[in-house]
């Protein structure tokens, strides 16, 4: 491979013609720049949402008022949820890393619709600005919870309409990205890259793209109806006018359940890339993983009712949803078995991307298994609306998706930045994060089982010890995040220069320079075999 000083001239960071300065970035149709734009924006929002989370934990360190009033607390957890879910986790891996990596992984020069890609980013930023604007105008930040349930979301004087409009714009961004990725994967694979020679991260982006296409319009509809209700009083959700409040819950969850698969599928795809490299062997069960991604995406449409078991649905409906919820766990479990089998008897290199990956497998498994507890009708009655649920979704979304995101950031860091980060700091960050995460969230399972409701500002004295431990955990977690970002951001500027393939990976992105040139590849590759081939002496 051609290395050395030449690559700096050719790297995509060098602007060649066209607008200069910041405009060469925010008006760029280069998928790599757009990916970085997304990453920069979403981690800024993540930072804000983390602060909100820390404030929530600070409030909850003791019963009664600690640092804020009850109405402020409602707004804080609502905004924490809205930012984390709509601005960080849902766009997260697909828009951040997927944008950067998809064309590289399939041997293409860009995505199918580069200008629509840029437009997706602009919808994202505009939506984010509208949401952030809603915090400071009108009646103040929404206090309904990120789920915006009616009737409160219709009656409250807070800025629900504006916030919901912002989310609507984000939905458009997500849908356009889905269309772009699905078309890209169909049309732009390098010669010789048949479907079953694609890297599994690409399979996961494909399945995710379909979910984005099929589910997000329902969110758009739901939010439109909510805005129409608030602005014009249509009455569709208002029982006094002939409507039905439960309708909102159905519509909302018909999107929001598939949304969690938008969150987890790319994360699973990313770790499936990392494991073969650091076990120095091919993935176990390639087709099982590919098909299970599609299975999760499909079956995920059928389970939304499990968020509504206590809402008054018929017994028959609840039994069907519960059964389907158990079914959808199976493809996820298949993946876990395949990952573990891939590590078994591999030649393990315990570097930071793999450490984050192993943490992911452990934390996501806890999250997934507790999901079964939530999904069983008998137990759901006790855990619905409690801290057990809060712990469950943080284990899956944070311990799952976010940890996989961190793993992927470390793994692809050299490719994106052309530099290496400091391994000791990375390992330390992983350890501190893992400890902090469990100290923060595990007590919540116990709190939930003992009856502590979620979204409550105050609590009985018997819950205090677990809340106290949890808050300490939040500080440990914060330190872990600080170490990690100090490492990564510092290394962008001062890290050691990276070669094109520092990890010995076998997928196409590692055949071009770090960072890649504007056109991705000097010559487009021709693919002759599967993606994970590690021979002796490679």
């Amino acid at each position, binding site marked *: 491979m051609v290395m050395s000083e030449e690559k700096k001239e050719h790297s995509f960071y060098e602007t060649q013609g066209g607008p200069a300065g910041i405009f060469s970035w925010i008006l760029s149709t280069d998928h790599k720049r757009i990916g970085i734009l997304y990453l920069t924006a979403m981690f800024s929002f993540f930072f804000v949402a983390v602060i909100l989370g820390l404030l929530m934990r600070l409030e909850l360190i003791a019963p009664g008022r600690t640092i804020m009033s009850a109405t402020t607390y409602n707004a804080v957890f609502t905004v924490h949820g809205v930012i984390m879910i709509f601005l960080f986790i849902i766009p997260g891996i697909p828009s951040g890393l997927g944008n950067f990596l998809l064309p590289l992984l399939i041997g293409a020069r860009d995505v*199918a619709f580069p200008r629509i890609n840029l437009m997706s980013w602009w919808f994202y930023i505009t939506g984010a600005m509208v949401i952030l604007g809603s915090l400071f105008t009108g009646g103040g930040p929404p206090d309904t919870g990120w789920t915006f349930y009616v009737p409160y979301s219709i009656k409250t004087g807070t800025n629900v309409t504006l916030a919901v409009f912002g989310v609507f714009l984000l939905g458009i961004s997500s849908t356009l990205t889905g*269309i772009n990725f699905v078309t890209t994967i169909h*049309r*732009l694979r390098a010669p010789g890259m048949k479907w079953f020679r694609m890297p599994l991260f690409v399979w996961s982006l494909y399945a995710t793209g379909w979910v984005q296409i099929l589910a997000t319009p*329902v969110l758009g509809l739901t939010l*439109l109806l909510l805005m129409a209700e608030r602005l014009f009083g249509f009455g*569709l959700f208002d029982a006094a*006018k*002939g409507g039905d409040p439960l309708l909102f819950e159905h519509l909302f969850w018909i999107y929001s359940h598939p949304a969690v698969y938008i969150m987890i599928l790319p994360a699973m795809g990313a770790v499936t890339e990392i494991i073969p490299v650091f076990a120095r062997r091919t993935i176990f069960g390639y087709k099982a993983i590919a098909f299970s991604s599609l299975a999760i995406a499909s079956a995920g449409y059928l389970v939304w009712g499990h968020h509504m078991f206590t809402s008054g649905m018929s017994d028959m409906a609840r039994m069907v949803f519960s059964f389907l919820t158990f079914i959808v766990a199976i493809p996820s479990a298949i993946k876990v078995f395949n990952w573990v089998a891939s590590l078994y008897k591999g030649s393990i290199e315990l570097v930071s991307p793999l450490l984050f990956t192993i943490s992911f497998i452990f934390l996501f498994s806890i999250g997934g298994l507790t999901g079964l507890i939530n999904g069983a009708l008998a137990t759901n009655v006790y855990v619905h609306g409690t801290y057990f649920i809060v712990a469950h979704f943080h284990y899956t979304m944070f311990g799952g998706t976010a940890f996989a995101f961190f793993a992927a950031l470390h793994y692809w860091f050299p490719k994106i930045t052309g530099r290496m980060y400091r391994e000791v700091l990375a390992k330390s960050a992983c350890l501190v994060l893992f400890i902090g995460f469990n100290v923060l969230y595990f007590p919540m399972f116990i709190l939930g089982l003992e009856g502590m409701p979620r979204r409550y500002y105050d609590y009985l004295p018997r819950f205090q010890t677990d809340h106290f431990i949890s808050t300490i955990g939040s500080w440990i977690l914060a330190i872990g995040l600080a170490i990690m970002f100090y490492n990564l951001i510092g290394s962008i500027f001062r890290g050691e220069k990276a070669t094109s393939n520092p990890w010995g990976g076998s997928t196409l992105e590692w055949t071009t320079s770090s960072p890649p040139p504007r056109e991705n590849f000097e010559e*487009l590759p021709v693919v002759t075999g599967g993606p994970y081939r590690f021979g002796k002496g490679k």
Partner: protein
Amino acid sequence: MNEENIIEGKSDYQGSKMGMWLFLFTELLLFTGLFLLYSAFRSRYSGEFHAGAAELNKTLGTLNTVLLLTSSLTMALSIKAIKNGQKKLSVLLQGLTVSLGLLFMVDKYFEWSEKIRHGIYPDSAELLQRGKGETIFYGLYYLMTGLHGLHVIAGIILISIMIKMTINERVHREKFVKLENAGLYWHLVDVVWVYLFPVFYLIS
């Protein structure tokens, strides 16, 4: 289009069509959701929906249907024209499509203002007093025809842009996928109306 061309980023006809169809699918899902809501509420308030349908202006509704169906014809013909290299004819037909779309909106304006004059609009005292079934019927009526109307306006803007591009020859005999995609969008808008019309105006 061979693979090299596609991968090298030159125009990809199939890819463009695929992207457009996927987008149309999302629009279809949006409206299907609304139609499902309609069916759910209709089964609850069948009598009132029946009565509400009788009150809507069938003449204006039929006129709208004729306008939109004709505009879909002119749109399809405009694409045929550009494929034959008949630039002026294509521009004319696209212009006709836009005009028919505008007439649709004018007609809609008359329909809605008539209802509003009678005090029938979301959250009005008159409507609420008529009872739950009619409140929901008209709520869905305004919502669905309103959302459809927004899409008609979007289509009008889109085709106007196509007219400009055809005149500038950015759309021409060899490269017309943009016009085809605009045509697909317009046909979707038409199809949605084809379902809206009987469901609101005719089932009684």
